[in-house]
């Protein structure tokens, strides 16, 4: 079956990001395909390259990166939600005149159309939310 996963929960403050990650691993372990993971709202912070995590804690963004590299996952971060929150790639940094950027490798900024396309293309869409 083809799954897509929507993550609206930020790492650290809410558990939803970690639950989504475990769910994604289980989907793949069961032999299903993940068409896309779409990060929306404060969930865009899953795509940061700049976490500095204590050695005994897991970095959620790094775990997404590792999973994506292993399984060739499409990790899409909602561009409108991201740039408002200060999560940008090199291209957006150039457009807005910022010297720095912070989108982690393996993530891609794109529009909400990718969310809609994922709904149409996937057999199952599963959302992991925060609260507010």
């Amino acid at each position, binding site marked *: 079956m083809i799954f897509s996963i929507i993550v609206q929960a930020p790492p650290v403050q809410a558990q939803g990001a970690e639950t989504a990650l475990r769910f994604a691993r289980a989907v793949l372990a069961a032999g299903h395909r993940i068409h896309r993971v779409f990060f929306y*709202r404060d969930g865009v912070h899953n795509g940061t390259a700049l976490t500095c995590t204590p050695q005994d804690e897991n970095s959620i963004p790094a775990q997404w990166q590792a999973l994506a590299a292993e399984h060739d996952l499409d990790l899409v971060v909602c561009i409108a939600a991201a740039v408002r929150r200060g999560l940008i790639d090199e291209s957006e940094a150039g457009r807005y005149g910022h010297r720095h950027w912070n989108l982690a490798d393996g993530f891609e900024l794109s*529009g*909400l*159309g990718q969310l809609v396309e994922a*709904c149409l293309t996937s057999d199952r869409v599963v*959302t992991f939310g925060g609260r507010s």
Partner: protein
Amino acid sequence: MSAASILVITRSAPYGSSAARDALDVALTCSVFEQPVSLLFLDDAVFQLLKGQSPGGIGQKNLNAVQQSLPLYDIDRLYVGARALAERGLHASDLILPVQTIDEAELASLLADHTTVLSV
């Protein structure tokens, strides 16, 4: 309704969080991609549709303006929880757009009638 249809559920009051705006953005995007979409307002989300909003003093954009554009995008299936309205002392006439009120018994079939249900 076409084979694929999306129901967006929103349960949050406007302005206190960005949920109202974010749910509208999903619905509008569905429409731009010519996908039939319905919106379901439960709990505090019925406040999203109250008339007379004026958020200039809190530095936010008026949601009423976006909501009034929904018919232009052919987004006209707006469902509102009857209980949510009643508990808040509101009537459909207090709302900025025409809506269908649905009671508990109709909720399950509304979910069943859509291919995908997105919570925002």
